């Protein structure tokens, strides 16, 4: 499915889910999400990871509503904890069945997002591996000078800000030196069309969601 349309659909479902009072609807959304992930051949390890990581928040939510909840505590406990799973799988669909490149490219072409935003974000994403390494280097460098940097040390923030400023300056100069200009029209090597069948699929999903929302299921 087209990445922009997928993003839109996931956002609408998530939004509506927040107001729905049905455990079964949550389970159906989570189950459909899981099936989609499996169909898209997302590795079982990643799916297992999503299930395992969520155990603590799910159990925590369930338990706190069960013990402290007002009114129908049992229903609230199940409602809130199953909702977490629904959200996790919806998030999984966004993260694991498409790349950032595809999503940004599609947003640029299908939703006419400004190219400055698209390529700036893309460039920043490409910096991510450097961030981890740089923080480690920063800490070691400080220790070599006899100072220990902690999460709460002002120096670490100061240095991070300086490095970010330098990176952003470098990034924009790199983009400009390779001909980037937000005002001129650019060509697109990868094109993102919205295939006709995407619309009926999206429509069916949304109509189905309304049935879940208003059918008064448990």
């Amino acid at each position: 499915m087209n990445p922009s349309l997928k993003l839109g659909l996931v956002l609408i479902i998530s939004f509506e889910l927040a107001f729905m009072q049905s455990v079964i609807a949550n389970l159906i959304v989570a189950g459909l999400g899981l099936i989609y992930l499996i169909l898209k051949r997302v590795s079982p390890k990643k799916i297992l990871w999503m299930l395992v990581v969520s155990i603590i928040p799910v159990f925590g939510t369930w338990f706190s509503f069960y013990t402290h909840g007002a009114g129908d505590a049992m229903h609230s406990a199940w409602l809130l904890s199953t909702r977490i799973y629904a959200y996790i799988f919806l998030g999984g669909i966004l993260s694991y069945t498409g790349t950032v490149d595809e999503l940004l490219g599609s947003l640029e072409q299908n939703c006419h997002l400004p190219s400055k935003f698209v390529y700036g974000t893309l460039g920043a994403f490409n910096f991510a591996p450097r961030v981890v390494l740089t923080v480690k280097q920063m800490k070691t460098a400080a220790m070599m000078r006899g100072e220990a940097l902690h999460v709460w040390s002002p120096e670490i923030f100061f240095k991070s800000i300086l490095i970010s400023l330098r990176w952003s300056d470098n990034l924009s100069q790199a983009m400009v030196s390779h001909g980037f200009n937000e005002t001129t029209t650019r060509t697109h090597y990868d094109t993102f069309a919205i295939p006709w069948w995407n619309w009926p699929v999206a429509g069916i999903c949304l109509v189905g969601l309304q049935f879940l929302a208003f059918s008064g299921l448990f």
Partner: protein
Amino acid sequence: MDKLVINDLTFRYKNSGPDIIQNLDFTLQPGTFNVLYGPSGCGKSTLMKIIAGLYPEFSGHVTSGKMYIDSEDVDNWSTQDFSKHVAFLFQNPNDQFSMTTVKREFIFTLENLGMPVEEIEATIDRSLKRVGILGFKDRQLDTLSGGELQKVSLAITLAMDSDLIMLDEPFACIDIKSRKQLLELLKDLQENDHKTILVTDHDLMGYQEIVDALYHFNKGQVRPVLDPEKVFATYQKENRQLLFEKPGNGVESIIDLHELNLQNGTKSLINSASVDVFKGKMILLTGENGTGKSTLFSALTRLHNYHGSIKYLKKDILKYNQRKYARYVGLIFQDSQMQYLKLTVEDEIKLSLKHTNYPDFWTDETIEDYLKQLNLDQLKDHVVYQLSGGQKKKLQIFEMLILGDPVLLMDEPLAGLDLHSTKTVMKLIKEVASEQELTVLMISHQLGGLQDFFDYHLQLKDQCLTYTEVLNYESIS
């Protein structure tokens, strides 16, 4: 028709600040190979960024002057107009790219220029082939070495079809072999593709045979050099064979490597190396680009994983307390700013004095004296991040020397320093190291002026580390 004409150009970073470039006149003929040399921090990079259209767009103010490229007034040019005429290769090749793979970067660039999609693939192949790196097409950029990145950059400028190619200190972090290859490639592009080439460098080694015009940058102005032979001669004299002793039997070791294996991603860098680093000695570490010298330093400072064992004073380095170990083996990072923690030069030095192992040695007079030698004495209240590249390097080396850690690893401390600064810095390192019995292990591609400073030479070649007696580096010219 002149390729580039600059008349009466004046540029400053801050409105109230000094002029970095002062009433400068400069002309380039089309299809020529030009070299601009001058001391580090004199404003060469600034001039190049102005010609490339990055300044004053990103920083600074042009207070007077006119610039013409291909006889067109560039006043109303957009950054994209510039990039169609002028290609600019940054000092640090890592800063040139914003995408993840070679192909992606090409696509990004060609899309920017509005090239029709059906021509993109063929253009990429043609440009990569011209530079001889077609095999790099699907490589991740972060797996390429500095020299390889420079070649990719050059290939991209060919794809962009810019006629004027400018390179800012392109060889600062590149080994001799890659340097030679790149110079040959540039000459080839100039002669056969009629490109106009402008290179800035502080080291003129290897240029004599290939340049058409040599320019000197000094005090904000550019002057053509009328007798280039004389200038080249002074640079040639510095370049010889370096001779070293081989470590004898009685020398005490401070760091022992045993069966060390290093990898970068899936690429094996060092394979089963067993070698000692000797106490109180100055050791030069050389090896081609991308062989893993910096990665070895990262392993020695526990910033990179390794297999095998590394021992400091006969004890595994992983068994030391991290904070304590950081004060036994210090690293002078390639990126100077990584080392700084304070805002001004003075505060930086004070911080080092607070933690120095030799408080008696570093009296106020000694500090003042060294600062004068390094030309930093007038800059005490300056913000460290605003110093020039060379000044940053000098301060960084100085503050690490003040600390007096028993072992000091130096990663390209001479990169970007001119001949004079190199000598001052080396003299400083040598003096302090012998006074405080420090062990110094230094990576350097710049070998001019290094005679008599080092005890041993450690070579990283074919994934092995060995001490060798002879280091030839004259072969380039």
